[in-house]
C-alpha cells in the first residue's frame, strides 16, 4: 500500500518504513529544553546595537514570533492527515513537539528582548502590519489552504497537490525562510553579538534540518512508489514556488538590511538565498535554478562540529536515551 493512500493505518509490525521510525528515535535522543538556553548576555549586546542593527533584530524577532506556529498548523491540518503510516505519524508527532519547543523558545526570546508589553503585542501583530512579514505569511497560508478542500488523496492531481504542500513547507518555509533568518543570527554571532540567541538557534537549526530531511525522505518514498507523479509540470511548479519564496524572503531582507550593514546586505542575501534554493532543488533531484555560490563565509562555521569549552557555553552534544546493560568485556 503506497504511503499516500487514504486511511489511518495502525500496523507497526511488520514495519513498512523503518527509516521513519529511526528518525523518530534519533529526534528523541536530541531533546533540549528552552530553560537550557542562557539569554542573559544578549541584553547587554542589545544595549549597544546601532539603530540599523536594532531594526534588523526587532524585525527578525517579529518573524520568529509566528513562524513556527504556522509550520505546526500545517503539520496538524495537512501532513498528519495524509501521510498514512503510523511510523511516519510518530515522527510527525515528535516534530509537532519540537515546533512547540521552538514556539516557546521564541516566545521566551521575545519576552526577554522586549520588556514592554505593547512592544510584545506589536511583534505578534507584525504579521498583519509589517508588509514584508505579511507577504511571507500569506505565501504560507496560500499553501496551507491549497489542501484545505481535500479530505483524501484519491487522484494523481490530489497527490501532486499534497507533494507541493509538503515541498513548500520543507524547501521554502523551513528550508528557505528559516535558513534566511538563521543567517542573520549567525552574522550577528560572527560579530560576537547575541550569543544566547545563536546558541538556541543552533538547536532550532538542528531540529529544522531534521524536519526538512524527513520531508524529503517522504518525497523520495513517494517518488519510488509512484514515479508517475513527478512530471514536468510538478518540476515547473516547484521551481516557480521556490522563485516566489526567494522573492518574498528578499523583500524581507530589504526591509531588514535597509541600506546595508557591514558584511550584510540585500545583495549578499539574494546570493545566499539563491544558493540555498539551488541546494533544495538538488536535494529533490531537480535541476538547479540559479547557479549562485554561497557568499557568507560565516555560514561555513555552522557546518563544522563544535568543541565547547565548558567554562563558557553549555555543551549541546549529549544524547538522551542510552541503551545496554553493565558489562566488563566490551571493546572501547
Amino acid at each position, binding site marked *: 500500500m503506497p504511503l499516500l493512500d487514504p486511511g489511518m493505518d495502525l500496523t507497526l509490525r511488520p514495519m513498512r518504513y523503518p527509516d521513519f521510525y529511526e528518525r523518530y528515535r*534519533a529526534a528523541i535522543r*536530541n*531533546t*533540549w*529544553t528552552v530553560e*537550557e538556553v542562557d539569554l542573559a548576555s544578549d541584553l547587554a549586546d542589545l544595549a549597544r546595537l546601532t539603530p540599523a542593527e536594532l531594526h534588523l533584530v526587532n524585525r527578525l524577532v517579529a518573524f520568529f514570533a509566528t513562524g513556527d506556529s504556522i509550520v505546526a498548523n500545517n503539520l496538524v491540518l495537512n501532513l498528519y492527515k495524509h501521510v498514512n503510516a503510523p511510523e511516519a505519524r510518530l515522527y510527525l508527532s515528535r516534530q509537532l513537539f519540537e515546533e512547540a519547543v521552538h514556539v516557546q523558545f521564541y516566545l521566551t526570546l521575545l519576552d526577554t528582548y522586549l520588556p514592554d508589553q505593547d512592544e510584545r503585542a506589536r511583534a505578534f501583530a507584525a504579521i498583519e502590519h509589517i508588509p514584508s512579514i505579511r507577504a511571507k505569511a500569506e505565501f504560507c497560508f496560500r499553501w496551507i489552504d491549497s489542501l484545505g478542500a481535500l479530505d483524501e488523496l484519491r487522484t494523481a492531481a490530489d497527490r501532486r497537490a499534497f507533494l507541493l504542500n509538503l515541498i513548500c513547507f520543507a524547501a521554502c518555509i523551513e528550508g528557505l525562510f528559516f*535558513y534566511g533568518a538563521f543567517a542573520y543570527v549567525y552574522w550577528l*554571532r560572527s*560579530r*560576537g553579538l547575541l*550569543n544566547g540567541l545563536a*546558541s538556541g538557534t543552533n538547536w532550532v537549526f*538542528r531540529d529544522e*534540518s*531534521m524536519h526538512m*530531511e524527513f520531508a524529503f525522505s517522504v518525497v523520495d518514498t513517494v517518488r519510488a512508489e509512484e514515479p508517475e507523479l513527478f512530471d514536468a509540470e510538478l518540476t515547473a511548479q516547484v521551481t516557480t514556488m521556490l522563485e516566489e519564496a526567494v522573492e518574498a524572503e528578499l523583500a524581507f531582507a530589504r526591509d531588514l538590511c535597509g541600506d*546595508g550593514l*557591514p*558584511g550584510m*546586505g540585500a*545583495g*549578499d542575501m539574494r546570493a545566499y538565498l539563491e544558493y*540555498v534554493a539551488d*541546494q533544495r532543488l*538538488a536535494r529533490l533531484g531537480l535541476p538547479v535554478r540559479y547557479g*549562485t*555560490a*554561497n*557568499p557568507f*563565509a*560565516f*555560514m*561555513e*562555521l*555552522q*557546518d*563544522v*562540529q*563544535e*568543541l*565547547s*569549552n*565548558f*567554562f*563558557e557555553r*553549555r*555543551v549541546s*552534544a*549529549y*544524547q*538522551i*536515551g*542510552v*541503551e*545496554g546493560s*553493565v558489562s*566488563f*568485556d*566490551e571493546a*572501547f
Partner: protein
Amino acid sequence: MTVTMPAEAPATGGIAAEVAAACAGIEGTAPERVLGAVRSGDGASAAGLRDLAIGEAAALVAVEPGYSRVAARLLAARIRDETAEAGVRSFAGSVAAAHAEGLLADAPAAFAAANAAALDALIDQGADDRFGYFGLRTLYDRYLLRHPRTRLVLERPQHFFLRVAVGLSDTVDEAAELYRLLSTLSYLPSSPTLFNSAARRPQLSSCFLLDSPQDELEAIYERYGQVARLSKYAGGIGISWTRVRSRGSLIRGTNGHSNGIVPWLRTLDASVAAVNQGGRRKGAACVYLEPWHADVEEFLELRDNTGEDARRTHNLNLANWIPDEFMRRVEADATWSLFDPKEVPELTDLWGDAFDDAYRAAEKEGRYVRQIPARKLYGRMMRTLAETGNGWMTFKDAANRACNQTAEPGRTVHLSNLCTEILEVTGEKEAAVCNLGSVNLAAHVSPAGIDWERLRATVRTAVRFLDRTIDRGFYPTPEAETANRKWRPVGLGVMGLADVFFTLRLPFDSAEARELSTRIAEEIALAAYAASADLAEAHGPLPAYAETRTARGQLHIDHFPDAAPTRPAEWDALRARIAEVGLRNSLLIAIAPTATIASITGCYECIEPQVSNLFKRETLSGEFLQINGYLVEDLKSLGLWNDAVREAIKRANGSIQGLVDLPGEMLDLYRTAWELPQKALIDLAAARTPYIDQAHSLNLFMETPTIGKLSSMYAYAWRSGLKTTYYLRSRPATRIAQTTVAAAVCSLENPETCEACQ
C-alpha cells in the same frame, strides 16, 4: 567552496595595502581573497573595513590555514591603533595608564616606572607574529587590560606578557627570564595568573577545593558564602556534599524530616550562576558525592534535561568520589548499602582499609537506609555520563594512597576540583588551593625529537614562578590562604602532546607514543622536583614538610613499583638531595585541561588527541574554525589539498578515514579522538601516573555510548590505577544539514568528475 567576489568597485588605499602586507610571506594566501568581502562593506569606516577583512580572513582558515596568521596580523594592527588611541606607546606607558585607572597595584607600577628603559628593551618586536588568529583574538577579547570607561585596550600582547612577568618578579632579570618563556609561547601560567598578575587584587590561583559543609544550616550557608567569594575572582570550585544528611533523615530541632541534598544543591546552582567572574568567564563549580550517600540516585539526575525542574541543577558539574569497595562490589555483582551520613559520619574521613572496615561494620549493624545491587547504581552512573557528559568517575582510594599530604592519620583527600586534576587534602578550616601553569610541548619539539635540555630549563623557570604565585597571590578567603601557605602546592602541566605526536609522526595508540609520553612526564617530574629542592635550599622547605610522605623518605613514584624510570641515577641523586634539603612544595604536577591557554598558544589541549581535523570553537568571543595544520601540510605535499578534499573532510565531520587514496600511515596518524581506541588513552594516562603527583584531566570519547561499552571502559580505568577521569564526550544523535556543502552526492574517488565541488 568558493566565495563570490561582488562586482562592486574594488577597495582602494589603506585597507588594500594593509591586507597585502598582512599576507606577505605567508604561503597560499592572496590579498584579493580577503578583500572580496571588504568591497561589499563600502561606506564603513577605515577601522570597520579592517574588521571586515579580519572576519573574512578568519573565515578562510578552512581553505588555507595561513589565513589564520593573516587575520592575526590585521588584529595586531587594530590593537596597535587602539592602544595608540588610548595614549599607550610603550610598556611603561601601558603600565602607567592601567595603574592610573586603578587596574594595577602600586608596587609593580613603581617597578615598571623605575626600570622603564630596561623593560622596554626586553620587548620582542617580532613576537606577535607567533600568534594564530584564535589565540590573539582570545587575548584581545578577554585578557588584555581595558580602560574602565572607554573599553579601549591599554596593553599590546607583548606588554601583557611582560606585565604578567613583572607582577611575579623582583628584578628585571627575573622578569626577562619569565617574559622569554611567555613571548615564545613555551610556557603559560593559568588564566587567573594571566588575568591578575600585578593587579590590585592579584588572585592568581585556578582551583579551590572546599570540604563538604558540616551537616547543619549555618555551615551550609557559610559554605555558599565561601563559594561566592572564591568564584568572584575567577577560580573554579570543587566542593564535596557528602557530609550533608540524606532525604528522610530526622531533623531534631524541628522534629521534621530532611529533604536531602537536592534543595541545597539547587541553591548552590543559583549562587554559582549569579557570580559572573568579572564578566570574563562564568562561575563554575563541581559537586562531589560519595556513592554510599543515600541521595546518590537523585544526585545523578541533577543534570537531566527531563523531569521536574525543581530537582535539577543546570550549572553545576557533578562527580562521583568512588571508594574501591564500590568498584569491587560492582565487579562481584554484590549488594551495595546506602547510608545517611548523619548516621555514619565516620565514612567521609576514611579511605583504604579503614574505610572498608568501617563500611562493612556499619553494614553489618544494619545502619543503612537501603540496599541496591551495586551494578544497578554503576549502570545509572554510566547513563548519566552518556546523557550529560557529567558525573565524572574519580577514585577516592587511588587519590589518597599516593598523595603527599595524607601521611598522617586523619588527613584525607575528600574530592578533586572542577577539572579533576587537583588532589589535595581539605578540612573544616582548610580550603585547598592550586596555582597552575602548563609547558607548551609543541614549542619544545622538532622533527628531530624533543629538546630535552630546553624542556628541563623551561620546567625549572616555571616551577620557580609558580612557587612565587603562592606568596604574591591575594586569597579571597582565610581558609584558602592558610592552606596554601602551609602546603605550597603547585600544578605544573603540559599542553600540545598531540603536536608532539604529529611532529614525530607517532599514532596516539602506538607503543612509541606511550613511551615518549611517559618519558616526558618523567623528565618534567625530575626537573620540577629538583627545582623545588633548590627553592627549599634557598628559602626552607614548606611549613608542613614534616607532615608529608616525602619527609618520610617516600616520593610519589615509590607508590608505583611497576614504574620503570629511564633515568634511575638521576632519581637516586634527587632522592638524596631531597633528603638533605626537603621540598618547597608538597605537590608539583597536575595536568589541567588548558582549554584557553592552549588556544592562545595555538597548540592542542593538554594531553588530548585531536577531536577533529576540522572543527569550530564556540567561545564567548564568537565561533572560530580550526583545522589541523599538520594534515594540511601533508595533503599539500601529496598535491591533494583541493576543494574536493576539503569538502570531503567537512562532510565527514573532520574525519579523513574515507579518503581512500591516502597512505595508511596518514590515516593512522590523523585519526580523531572518536576513532582512536579509548583503551590507548587510558593506557597512556596509566603509564604517566607514577610521575603525576596530583592528577590529569582525562576526557574520554565515545561517539555512540552504550551502557555496556561505558561500564567496561570505566572499570578498566579503575583497574589501571587512574586517580580520576573527566568528561565523557559523546556526539549528537542528529545534526544540522550542512548549508555550505553541496547537496549532490560527491564522488571522492573521482573528484574531477564531481560537478558539485567545482
